[in-house]
């Protein structure tokens, strides 16, 4: 019964979304206040209805209702409760329902926190949001209904893919979707502004928090996915340039460009049509990502629905929304007269350079991702584009961005002198180069990757510190130190995010350049040296888990006779899903992770053992956390709290979830 109600709520939501996408638009055109006012309650109703549907599906999973097809395919009575819940979105239908729920959530937030918006703009934003909602609800109901029943319910389900039964992965999709779908707000604002025919500083201020929030969520989502890959897949890789990873990375890059160019619109009223275009493209890349993941056109490790019908439907959504928005853009963009005048050396120019680098980097990822498809369609060539290509083609952009960023962040608006802006940075530059040189001297016969990464990372971190210090103005060091805590949060956000980028760049270069690996056969009681650590295999035992069986090894790691850690890597078999997985054992450390994996028993006795020292591994995710924290700080800046609705000062424009 509850399941049918959930289904019914979804159908109602589709009807509401259709009304929401038409009535306010007409109202805004004709200046009929009543019609425009439909948008707000409609957005709220959509949230309630989709929320109910989602709750109904969750209920079916939690109570293991095996008369529902989706529950049979993705759940099992023995599965721990958290994975019963995360199983709701561990499949195509459920994850799409989550997507629609988040879309409705953003729509409702825009309705609730948009008091400051001019009524016509607000009505149009919500109407566009309604259209996206209607498209995806139709997609859900017509091709991927999560509420289908089965005729003869089985006694038990077929279990969730064991690789997905993991805390890191339980929360990876919701964050990614918050990011993807958050970009739909930027899109709605862009289309609404195009219909209105004007973009001003206030528009820049309204669109930026949504972009910032989406970007923060994407950052966290991507970081969670990469962290999961690191500890779960068994060899400590953290980024594979897989099409699905690229699908989330492309909107991230465009969103990063967008949140920088929106600053220029907000502060200087320049780059307007470019910002509108970016807002459209950002959501476009979200849709392309959805297409890549759910159509199975480009094979990848984690595409979960290989269904041409669904692919065609998404392609249709993509074509309608991108085609429509870009046509509107072509017709109206010339009306966006830029205002700000600025010289060639200025912060505006710095941000233009940032945008060029980020968008071209995104384009490189894009063309690499779709190239196999293009080559096969046009020339019948079956080829692959993998990590080596992306590493070669993408890295130069990272280096370029990192090299110019600290200076760009210090340039004043309108007119600047590069020499003068560079003056406080010379020390940081010298120190960074010295650090890189030191690293180069200490390592023997390896590539320049590590040292260069260290120098760039240090340059970014020092640059961010100097940026913050410079904001405190003149006076005694003590007075400036007192002032630094009272700087606007936007300043702190910028510094933190830029430093975070530096930390991540350094960590990626470090782990790639300085990793140590060892592969060998070990018998119980044997030991060997890895770097300065002695690793001893104490024993191997069989362990029974709730829904798996495991072979667990007990390793003792010592350094100079002192015990550092006991590590217990596992090899698991999930009988229901018929799948083996490896659970690496990791001793996390500030400067290195010790990473142990146990393999198969060997013919001559003993077990295959893989061990790594992964330098600065945690810094990768530490850096991304700093970036997300920086975004959040920026988001809570006073100007957004005020502009977002004075009555709800603490709630801000952020969807608090």
């Amino acid at each position, binding site marked *: 019964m509850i399941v049918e109600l959930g289904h019914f709520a979804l159908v109602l939501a589709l009807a509401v979304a259709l009304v929401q996408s038409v009535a306010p638009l007409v109202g805004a055109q004709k200046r009929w206040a009543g019609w425009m006012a439909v948008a707000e309650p409609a957005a709220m109703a959509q949230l309630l209805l989709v929320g109910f549907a989602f709750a109904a599906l969750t209920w079916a999973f939690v109570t293991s209702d095996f008369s529902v097809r989706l529950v049979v395919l993705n759940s099992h009575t023995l599965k721990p409760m958290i994975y019963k819940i995360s199983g709701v979105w561990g499949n195509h239908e459920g994850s799409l329902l989550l997507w629609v729920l988040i879309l409705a959530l953003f729509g409702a937030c825009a309705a609730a926190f948009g008091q*400051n918006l001019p009524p016509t703009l607000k009505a149009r934003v919500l109407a566009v949001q309604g259209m996206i909602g209607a498209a995806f609800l139709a997609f859900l109901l017509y091709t991927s209904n999560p509420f289908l029943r089965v005729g003869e319910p089985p006694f038990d389900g077929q279990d969730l893919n064991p690789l997905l039964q993991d805390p890191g992965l339980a929360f990876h999709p919701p964050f990614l979707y918050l990011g993807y779908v958050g970009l739909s707000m930027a899109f709605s604002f862009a289309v609404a502004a195009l219909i209105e025919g*004007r973009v001003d*500083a*206030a528009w820049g201020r309204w669109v930026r928090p949504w972009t910032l929030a989406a970007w923060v969520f994407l950052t966290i989502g991507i970081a969670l996915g990469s962290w999961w890959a690191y500890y779960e897949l*068994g*060899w400590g*890789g953290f980024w*594979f340039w*897989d099409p699905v990873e690229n699908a989330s990375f492309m909107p991230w890059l465009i969103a990063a460009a967008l949140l920088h160019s929106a600053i220029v619109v907000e502060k200087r009223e*320049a780059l307007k049509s470019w910002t509108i275009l970016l807002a459209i493209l950002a959501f476009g890349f979200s849709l392309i990502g959805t297409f890549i993941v759910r159509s199975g056109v480009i*094979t*990848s*490790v984690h*595409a979960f629905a290989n269904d041409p019908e669904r692919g065609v439907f998404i392609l249709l959504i993509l074509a309608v929304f991108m085609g429509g928005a870009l046509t509107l853009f072509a017709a109206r963009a010339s009306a966006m*007269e830029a*205002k700000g*005048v*600025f*010289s*060639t050396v200025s912060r*505006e*120019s710095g941000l*233009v350079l940032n*945008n*060029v680098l980020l968008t*071209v980097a995104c*384009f*490189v990822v894009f*063309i690499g991702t779709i*190239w196999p498809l293009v*080559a096969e369609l046009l*020339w019948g*060539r*079956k*080829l*692959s*584009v*993998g*990590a*080596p*290509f992306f590493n*070669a*083609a993408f890295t130069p952009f990272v280096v370029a961005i990192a090299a110019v960023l600290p200076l760009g962040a210090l340039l004043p608006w309108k007119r600047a002198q590069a020499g003068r802006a560079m003056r406080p940075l010379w020390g940081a530059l010298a120190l960074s180069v010295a650090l890189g040189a030191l690293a180069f001297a200490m390592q023997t016969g390896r590539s320049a990757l590590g040292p260069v990464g260290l120098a760039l990372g240090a340059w970014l971190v020092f640059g961010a510190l100097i940026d913050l210090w410079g904001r405190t103005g003149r006076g005694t060091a003590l007075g400036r130190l007192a002032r630094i805590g009272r700087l606007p949060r936007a300043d702190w956000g910028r510094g933190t995010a830029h430093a975070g980028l530096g930390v991540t760049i350094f960590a990626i270069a470090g782990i790639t350049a300085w990793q140590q690996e060892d*592969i060998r*056969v070990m018998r119980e009681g044997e030991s060997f040296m890895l770097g300065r650590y002695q690793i001893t295999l104490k024993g191997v035992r069989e362990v029974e888990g709730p829904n798996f069986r495991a072979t667990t090894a007990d390793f003792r790691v010592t350094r100079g006779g002192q015990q550092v850690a006991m590590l217990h890597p596992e090899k698991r*078999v*999930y*009988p229901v899903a*018929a*799948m*083996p997985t490896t659970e690496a054992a990791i001793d996390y450390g500030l400067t290195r992770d010790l990473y142990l*994996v*146990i*393999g198969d028993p*060997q013919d001559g006795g003993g077990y*295959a053992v*893989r061990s790594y020292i992964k330098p600065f591994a945690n810094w990768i995710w530490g850096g991304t956390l700093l970036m997300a924290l920086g975004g959040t700080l920026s988001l809570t800046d*006073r*100007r957004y709290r*005020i502009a977002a609705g004075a009555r709800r000062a603490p709630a801000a424009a952020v969807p608090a979830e």
Partner: protein
Amino acid sequence: MNRLALLILALTLAAPAFAVQPDEILPDPALETRAREISKDLRCLVCRNESIDDSNAQLARDLRLLVRERLVEGDSDAEVMAFVVDRYGEYVLLNPTTGGANLILWIAGPAMLAAGLGTAALYLRRRRSAPEPQPALSESERARLTEILKD
């Protein structure tokens, strides 16, 4: 399928748990390093976007052994690559060649960058000399904007 059958399937499916196995490693560390580097550029054909160095599949193991065999025979890195591509086609290369239409793929990035920088430079030149246009906002709108932007 009943559970017992699934259980049997699970046991037979328990494939090698990780990529490079200890028995594959060549005694000569220099050759082994070269083998690893080559393996990173070769795709495991039955996997999705994994190199044979990362893959657990049997076919990847066969390819790894083949690469090592060729290296021990004295082939250069390029010869090993050519040998594998002859057998499996260019699909096996994770790093696409620059031949033929692939040139577009390799040039696309730098070309876009040049175009982007060129457009940006033109835009900046225009911005530098553009006259400050008259505000398009009405008086009341401007008052409201200053209100909002005040802090």
